[in-house]
């Protein structure tokens, strides 16, 4: 899933390890989220959003991702 974690982290001048420590996960998890290899849980998304003073919707590009999923669903039929 596409997220804006890297963009927000760079803006906040945080390292991956610093962000990982703030949200109680390993730095590998942050790396995987930024590489779009792993979709964070709702609680982790909320914690990250809280660190960057934004919303989960904005952080996880929910509108874009929903549109993408809708399109994939349409292609199924």
């Amino acid at each position, binding site marked *: 899933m596409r997220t804006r974690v890297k963009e927000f982290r760079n803006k906040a001048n945080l390292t991956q390890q610093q962000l990982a420590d703030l949200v*109680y*996960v*390993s730095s*590998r*998890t942050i790396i*995987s989220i930024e590489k779009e290899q*792993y979709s964070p*849980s709702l609680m*982790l998304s909320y914690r990250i959003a809280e660190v960057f003073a934004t919303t989960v919707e904005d952080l996880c590009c929910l509108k874009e991702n929903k549109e993408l999923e809708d399109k994939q669903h349409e292609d199924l039929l």
Partner: protein
Amino acid sequence: MKIYYKKKFIFGVIYFLLGLCLLTFGFLKGFDVKQVILSILMPLIGISEMYLSTNREAVKQEKVEERDERNQLIKLTSTDKAFRITREICFIAMLIFLVLGAKLEQVLLMGIGLGLAFSFSLLIFSNLFTTIYYENHI
């Protein structure tokens, strides 16, 4: 000295004591290469585990790694994959042994095939029961 991770500390103590036992046993009965390596490694692992269990930062880091949601997902996925691979290997080996046993009229091969068939059915039933359980609990 405060112990932050009891399980790790106990594990360290056990390893340390086992290492000491092995060392004592080696002095009494003589060493071979495997014993020398183990009697050096085991106390060292034990001491490092005991030390790490009293180090607040190391324990915190380890607990974060343990509770990390990605690590838990990896653990679940890899266990599931390993289970599937085992089941498939078991099925293929069962077929091979049963067919070979029947063709060559070898009771031993048939016996191995039946043993594998029992393991395969055990895997199928355990999968079925756990699926039913989680269908009702998730």
